[in-house]
């Protein structure tokens, strides 16, 4: 009999990179189902295209450029593709999606050495690249329907944040914001679906409360103060929290393992920073939505936060 000799511990929790990645995908499922209901065929095409192209690009880069073992099985490329799709309008032309996937995977992830080494959230790198390269199609939002069989031919309208920013139109009812029957990126519309995902991830211990709570609380507090100062100029904090990509970003994008801080305290600093930058852009910037920029900016601060914010020691 051949005995194995190795140092302790001799058992493992059974946790794996795959379990975490696929766990996040499960948490994204409710929001995806909602997007299929309201944006129909468009949502289906955009998601499939984004996921497939992300996986394909990762495979090609790993195989032919890095000449390493393929890593597409770990689920992170599927997750990047899904998150990228969730941040796109459901009528975005296919060729733009392909460019977004190439930038997300190629520049956002693989150029740094693949999973674990990237400093910016790959899906957001792709999304922001598209937003500043193709501003018109990226801000042309389909109106929600009921399983609409439309893709690029969808009827379009404005998002809640655009209405707030431009002071026009009738703001949607809170019930619409909760259920998701509003215009917007395909995965961001339903607050309830995203919150179900949050609860699932907290229960599975995939993420902790620190980042989502600090982002949401900061946005609520900051916009609450501004609303108190001038209700006519600044929208109600609940509207800010429930609209745009705030919940999607706070729950699924800001919590990306690789690009967020390691300690609870660090996560709260990071989340608070995201909240502040988001509100500053929303209220005073040129763009109606600033969450993507806020997360990318705080991604850049993550190494610094990790350096200076140490965990609570057993005894100081």
């Amino acid at each position: 009999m051949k005995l194995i000799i190795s140092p302790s511990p001799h058992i493992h929790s059974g946790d794996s990179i795959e379990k975490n990645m696929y766990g996040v995908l499960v948490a994204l499922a409710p929001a995806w189902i909602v997007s299929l209901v309201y944006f129909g065929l468009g949502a289906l095409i955009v998601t499939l295209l984004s996921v497939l192209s992300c996986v394909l690009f990762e495979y090609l880069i790993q195989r032919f450029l890095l000449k390493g073992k393929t890593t597409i099985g770990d689920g992170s490329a599927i997750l990047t593709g899904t998150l990228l799709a969730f941040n796109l309008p459901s009528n975005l032309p296919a060729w733009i999606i392909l460019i977004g996937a190439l930038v997300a995977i190629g520049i956002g992830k693989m150029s740094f050495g693949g999973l674990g080494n990237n400093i910016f959230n790959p899906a957001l790198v792709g999304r922001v690249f598209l937003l500043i390269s193709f501003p018109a199609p990226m801000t042309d939002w389909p109106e929600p329907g009921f399983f609409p069989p439309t893709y690029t031919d969808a009827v379009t309208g404005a998002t809640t944040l655009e209405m707030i920013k431009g002071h026009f139109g009738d703001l949607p009812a809170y019930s619409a914001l909760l259920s998701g029957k509003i215009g917007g990126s395909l995965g961001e519309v339903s607050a309830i679906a995203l919150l179900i995902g949050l609860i699932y991830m907290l229960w599975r211990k995939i993420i902790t409360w620190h980042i989502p709570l600090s982002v949401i609380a900061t946005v609520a507090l900051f916009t609450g103060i501004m609303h108190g100062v001038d209700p006519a100029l600044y929208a109600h904090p609940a509207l800010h929290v429930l609209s745009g990509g705030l919940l999607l970003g706070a729950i699924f994008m800001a919590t990306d393992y690789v690009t967020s801080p390691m300690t609870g305290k660090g996560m709260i600093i990071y989340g608070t920073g995201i909240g502040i930058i988001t509100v500053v852009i929303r209220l005073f910037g040129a763009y109606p939505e600033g969450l993507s920029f806020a997360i990318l900016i705080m991604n850049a601060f993550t190494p610094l936060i990790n350096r200076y914010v140490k965990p609570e020691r057993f005894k100081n």
Partner: protein
Amino acid sequence: MLKTFHIGGIHPPECKLSAGGKPVVLPVPGQVVIPLSQHAGAPAKLLVAKGDEVRTGMLIAEASGFISARIHSSVSGVVSKIDDVADAGGYRKQAVVIDVKDDVWEDAILREGQTLPTDDLPAEEIIERIKKAGIVGLGGAMFPTHVKLTPPPGCKADVLIINGAECEPYLTADHALMLEKSEEILTGVRLLMQACQVERACIGIENNKRDAIEKLSALAPHYPGVEIVPLKVCYPQGGEKQLIDAITGRRVASGALPISEGAIVDNIGTVFAVYEAIVRNKPLIERVVSVTGKQIKNPCNLRVRIGTPVRHLIEYAGGLPEDTGKIIGGGPMMGRALINADIPVTKGTSGILLIASQEAQRQSSRNCIRCAKCVAICCMGLEPNYLMNISEFKQWELMKKNRVMDCIECGSCSYTCPAHRPILDHIRMGKNEVRKQEARNA
């Protein structure tokens, strides 16, 4: 709310397969191998030679320094050789090999049931008898107990903490002992309280041992100053610093000993050995060992003579399963993988655990995804992932600055890591290098 330590911790599957069984006395084997280094500190000095006849309980090696402990023969028979024999760590060290003949005990040891009077024994006398009996920490660290009970000048203990947490998965030796020898243990606690002159003793027991908590709690009122403290089931509840924190809320500083916070910690097995030494004049020659594992036919707790090769324990429990990947001395989190089944049981062997090949095989390490789970579960508040990264770059000085020496090697980080990174291996390497550096500078 159950008491627990304040940061980190994990909850691995408990797998207490051998729980509930009363310790069975394992027949004395034909030959025992008694290593001379069964304690922290200097190896004991040999007193016997090849061909000498020994009796059960006879002194065969004397303590050779302040931190060292006596060793007694656990059987009667003839010393067949003095040889270097592999121990649990895999290193060959000096040991006495005894061929067993009958089981003739030293006359001074009282039979079970007989007792010596213990009232009003002075502290020095108790400590002296503990020293003479060769008692060390039976939890696994094997630190000589008499040294622990003799605080350095200027330090005074005010609480005695008894570790009945048994937080390692699988192990049930302390649990079995608490159920079988409840009164003896409580008497032992009183004796230890006398020895370190404290008015208060707390026995911390994880809440998965309800029967032991209930039994001891019912008896405790007869033993003044002894409290039973149920603890949350959370690994590493039985870590010395964690246990003191959980029970008293006091936190022992980096590099400091429990006595700096007025605490002395002893394991349940140690307490029972103290009882036997004082009340029956019996040296430490046997202990309870859990023999367990998912593949094993008959998981059990055995009362085993020190020096018995683990092969005999495994045979008693149903034999070595075909598919055994690891034989572990101790628990799955902190135990050591033995190099073969001939390694003898020593004073610190709390369990023999068999793990099937598939579970024993480590999976290959992948990129750190910075999930931060290791930071969240570290019971000392360290950054295991960061320590591993800088260890790979041989940044020993930086590791020291990031408190690598605080690590208690509980293994929770490697256990938790979704990328299967060998975090603790690298932390150990760093600790080793820091120790070397400190020795050079000294």
